[in-house]
């Protein structure tokens, strides 16, 4: 196993563990970004340039922003402590164990079956055109399904986040026109 692989794996594991342990959510998010950079490095090590750089653009450039935005918008105080609910009910434990089981059932067989590459070989030299042909040809169904899933999740997020009734609407939002502010009646 090459030194580069070990170093990259160490970066991924250490930053991911630190992200889990850290009590500061922003630190966790930034450490998670480091993990993603390490994963992109692993792809590069394996010779998959396109996937590696795409991983960096999508996760380091895009997903990280969404994560940070979510953290900043949901926490009222920057030092608000993480509230751990002391009485862990039976349902909670069962749900946690079930989730762990399913993730392990997916990942462990895959890890056992897949052969561990001992060194970075000459990776498959795929041109962008070939990747495009593969995505639009044999893997078209997968691309479409992923697109539908993303659209559905986007619509779901909008439905959850959008104010439904007048009471849900924040006081400062007077319909988005931005006019007549201050002429309205005092909100009761």
């Amino acid at each position: 196993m090459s030194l580069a692989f070990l170093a990259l794996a160490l970066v991924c594991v250490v930053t991911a563990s630190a992200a889990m342990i850290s009590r500061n959510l922003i630190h966790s998010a930034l450490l998670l970004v480091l993990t993603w950079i390490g994963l992109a490095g692993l792809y590069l090590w394996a010779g998959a340039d396109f996937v590696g750089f795409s991983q960096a653009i999508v996760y380091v450039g895009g997903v990280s922003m969404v994560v940070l935005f979510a953290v900043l918008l949901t926490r009222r105080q920057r030092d608000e402590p993480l509230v751990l609910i002391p009485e862990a009910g039976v349902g909670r434990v069962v749900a946690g164990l079930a989730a762990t089981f399913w993730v392990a059932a997916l990942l462990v067989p895959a890890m056992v079956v897949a052969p561990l590459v001992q060194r970075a070989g000459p990776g498959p030299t795929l041109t962008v055109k070939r990747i495009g042909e593969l995505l639009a040809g044999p893997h078209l169904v997968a691309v479409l399904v992923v697109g539908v899933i993303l659209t559905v999740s986007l619509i779901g997020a909008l439905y959850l986040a959008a104010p439904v009734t007048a009471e849900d609407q924040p006081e400062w939002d007077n319909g988005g026109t931005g006019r007549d502010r201050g002429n309205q009646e005092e909100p009761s």
Partner: protein
Amino acid sequence: MTTTSVPSSESWLEVAPLQARDALLGLLPESLHWIASSVLAIAVLVGAFGLMFAYLTLAERKLLGRIQNRPGPNRTGWAGLLQPFADAVKALTKEDIVPRDADKVLHALAPVSLVALSLIGLAVIPFGRHLVAIELDAAVLYFFAAGAATELSIFMAGWASRNKYSLLAAMRALAQLISYEVPLLLSVVPVVLVAGTLSTTAIVAAQGGWAAGFWPHWHVLTPWGFSAFCLFMIAALAESNRSPFDLPEAESELIAGHLTEYSGFKYALFFMAEYFGMAALSAMAVTLFLGGWQAPLGWLEVLPSYVWFAAKLLALLAGFIWIRATFPRLRIDQLTRLAWKFLVPMALLNLANAAFWSLTAGWSGPLQAVRWAVSLAAVVVPFLLLSRSLFSGLGPRVYRYAPS
């Protein structure tokens, strides 16, 4: 630098940088060549762009001054030529203040990571016929992957300062990045589509030659290319936090935003990173749209390729400064509306336009005129329709004064 064999037919100036590199490498033992070559490339890039940064600050102050009808810095050295070095000494000798409640590690890490991330994109830019630090098959992707993380550093700076203005700046920087990353990348896709490659050297090579002997095959000189170039430059302005998109550091409302709690050399590092990022994006624009190091006319090739690249790069940077002196700052809602309702639809339509251009590459004679007309219409019509419908009723503003 890549070790390509140098054709003997080229002029002395064209190959002079390569010969200088080989002469320097000759002083070292053979076993060290691979690392010495890389270190040399890094040293040349950092040195050249560092010096360019120094004089770009002076050029910016001078140009802004002249545009605002004042002389600008003119006391230090000959006509102000030593001003950048005086600024450097001042920045280095200033006290480095870190707020007591700041997140010390992130506060120190932010400017360093910002400068590093702004610099590494330069590695894949072909500065001349033989001058590219590393040749990658996925160079365009690499460039944008490197640039994608810069706003993360701005967020780190804003959050770690523990200052409400800085945090507001961090939020604005995030919103701006999410909005403008999309049109920036979408405006690059047509070039990749038509050139059929992600390699920067191949993209520049595809723009060589002239149609009818005088019309360069640069992408900017096609209808879809011109549209993509404009979209790219607008998005690049926003990505590098330059005016009129400098909302994260708006000095009049956020007291310089994420820069509020920085002083001394860390403050200077932020400026350095801004200019490096601006130069890297401009260099990418030159590579993708303006023909890279290609000369505009055949007989002008007597000047070496890197001179042409530098001329185009400096012209774009001067454009950045001119825009800063001309336009007022946008509001945050105007900023996001411009991105999502105007730039993204235009970029998507432009993608279809480039696909049409790529499919009709074989047309000739009168069909060539049809090709140009259709492509031009596919840019102009959506532009007019979109701008009419989006910005109708928004201006001009009517001012009513109290009767005297």
